[in-house]
């Protein structure tokens, strides 16, 4: 959901360059840590997790203009460290087929990586304290995706300015686009019977809920059949 779909040449150089630098440093630390593990534990899991994420990201949700990322689910399966590497692989493959620019691979890895880290550790904290699987997953996914969406919008806003990031802007004529302030722009966003901040909130809420419910149902299924696949401790 928080995948940056910006194409090449849109974001400022310093942003995507440092996106690569920071992702590279994090990957370096993770690989160093993974050297202690058996390749058999890492490579097949990461390969399958990457494939699952790629397929999940290709499925449009229909009722809202977003797609699943299955990032947090991936984190629950392979762990946050390997999950970050999986994200890099997934984002690079997506960029090679035109789903986002090559130059934003580093930034995308950071944005969804943040989602995985927060989701994983928040879930670990919640499951040990509230001891309810459903609530722990729903809350951790909700909070993780919300934070990564804020991070994503902050990055994208560096190019355009916050008001212009709203999709409904393009449906308006040039006269209507002469807004005096952010409120005017927001009032132009429409979803079903709602507009403005309500419409944006509902689009994102529906998307996050679908992701959270999907993650919960899949984890519940895996816990019944093959709990050894998961990295989370319950």
């Amino acid at each position: 959901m928080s995948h940056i779909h910006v194409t090449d040449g849109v974001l400022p150089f310093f942003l995507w360059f440092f996106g690569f630098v920071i992702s590279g440093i994090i990957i370096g630390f993770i690989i160093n840590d993974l050297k202690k593990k058996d390749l058999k534990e890492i490579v097949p899991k990461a390969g399958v997790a990457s494939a699952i994420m790629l397929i999940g990201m290709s499925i449009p949700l229909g009722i809202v203009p977003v797609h699943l990322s299955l990032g947090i689910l991936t984190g629950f399966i392979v762990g946050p460290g390997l999950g970050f590497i999986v994200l890099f692989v997934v984002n690079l493959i997506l960029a090679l087929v035109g789903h986002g620019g090559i130059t934003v691979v580093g930034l995308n890895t950071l944005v969804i990586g943040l989602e995985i880290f927060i989701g994983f550790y928040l879930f670990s904290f919640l499951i040990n304290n509230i001891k309810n699987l459903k609530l722990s997953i729903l809350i951790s996914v909700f909070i993780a995706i919300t934070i990564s969406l804020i991070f994503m919008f902050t990055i994208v806003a560096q190019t355009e300015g916050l008001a212009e990031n709203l999709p409904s802007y393009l449906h308006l004529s040039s006269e209507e686009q002469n807004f005096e302030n952010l409120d005017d722009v927001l009032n132009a966003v429409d979803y079903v019977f709602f507009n403005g901040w309500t419409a944006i909130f509902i689009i994102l809420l529906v998307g996050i809920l679908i992701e959270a419910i999907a993650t919960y149902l899949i984890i519940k299924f895996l816990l019944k059949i093959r709990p050894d696949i998961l990295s989370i401790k319950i």
Partner: protein
Amino acid sequence: MLLVEIDRLSTDKNKKGYNISITSKLLFFLFMLTSIIVNKSLSINILILALLTTLFIYYGISIKLIFKLSLYPLFFGSLFGIIQMSSSLELGVLTILKSISAAWSVFFLITTTPYIDLFSTLNIVLPSLIIDIFFFAYRSIFILIEKGNNLIKIIKLRGGLKPFNIIFNIKNIAGAIGVIIINGFDISERMYNIYHLRGYKGGIKSEVSYKLKSIDDIFLIILSLITFIGVTIYG
């Protein structure tokens, strides 16, 4: 999925693009992408698009496939482009053209280069663990897509998907994804064991030739250099 078509095209030995060395294709891609990102001229971008179109036709790459692949970058490029048109029409059009030309330069690379050569070359800049994950991921995508399609058919045949019963459908689809994940892991572990029996200890080795093979290699490099120099001077 378009990945199947790309894979088939890139590994077709009868296509002219297959016989170009990966060195020249990568250099072409890097110079073209840099030219696209740094230039601020509409006419240069139009020329780049015309150049890429000519190359697609010359090397026998399906324009229909390129069009299908272009839908995503065109949509998001247009989104930003139309927003920028409120301040400058030229800037907006430039953004849209840049999005498409950047995507097309990537598409030229992936439709003429087998994935083995591409991933192996990434080994120059990425650790071997990541390259191994690329290979396993790429193989797993096709396996999982096939399994997923078969599973969805079975679920439909057994009444597992009902119209207007969203909760029932979501539960079954989640279960299907769970089954695909489990099958995927089993297949991957078997794949790893096969590799292990054949001496795999990390770092999949493949023989990629980086030597220039034909006049087309030199042609591509010169073309991209001219574009890059042109952008530096006039862009």
